[in-house]
């Protein structure tokens, strides 16, 4: 099966500018996640979707970050305006099942978008 697709691979912007990332999950996967990975750290969850609904956005900085999954398939993550500390890799992941994470239903990650804010 095709993996999780993300674009662009790299993005360089100046602080206070806007940026958007796109994710196409594995076909049929109901659950989609956006993670932020700062250099040298583990991924940190930003937002989780179940189909086109938000399940958990408690760690999303909502004053500047937004995300949507309008048709329950592709998703976009936007930052407006960007700050220097937003420099990170933004990872999208998807999972087939809707329920509890368990064996045979792990998260599958894309290769991420590396954002540099100058």
């Amino acid at each position, binding site marked *: 099966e095709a993996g999780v697709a993300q674009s662009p691979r790299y993005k360089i912007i100046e602080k206070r500018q806007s940026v958007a990332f796109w994710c196409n999950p594995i076909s049929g996967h109901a659950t989609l996640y956006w993670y932020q990975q700062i250099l040298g750290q583990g991924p940190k969850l930003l937002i989780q979707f179940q189909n086109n609904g938000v399940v958990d956005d408690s760690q999303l900085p909502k004053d500047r970050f937004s995300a949507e999954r309008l048709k329950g398939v592709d998703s976009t993550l936007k930052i407006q305006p960007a700050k220097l500390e937003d420099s990170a890799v933004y990872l999208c992941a998807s999972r087939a099942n809707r329920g509890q*994470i368990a064996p045979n239903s792990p998260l599958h990650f894309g290769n*991420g978008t590396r954002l540099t804010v100058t």
Partner: protein
Amino acid sequence: GESVGLHLPTLSVQEGDNSIINCAYSNSASDYFIWYKQESGKGPQFIIDIRSNMDKRQGQRVTVLLNKTVKHLSLQIAATQPGDSAVYFCAENRGGGNKLTFGTGTQLKVEL
């Protein structure tokens, strides 16, 4: 050792030796754990997982051990190969949820 910011713990092993990567978790309600491998420029890749009702699970060249008493997880890689060089993360699912919380990661370097 512990990592702060850019300083990932690093484990250097000789090719052919066995590697043991350790992870401590803090949430006693966590009931499912996964090890991921992340190569440079790529997303995390699933290696092996284990439920909290088990203490050991084996895969191909990899074994995960879980000690719930001390909240410790380890990944053992047998006959380590150059292709195993990567950052390894443990992740936990906290008590019936459907999202993963990741640890800091360990850089594995395989020396020829």
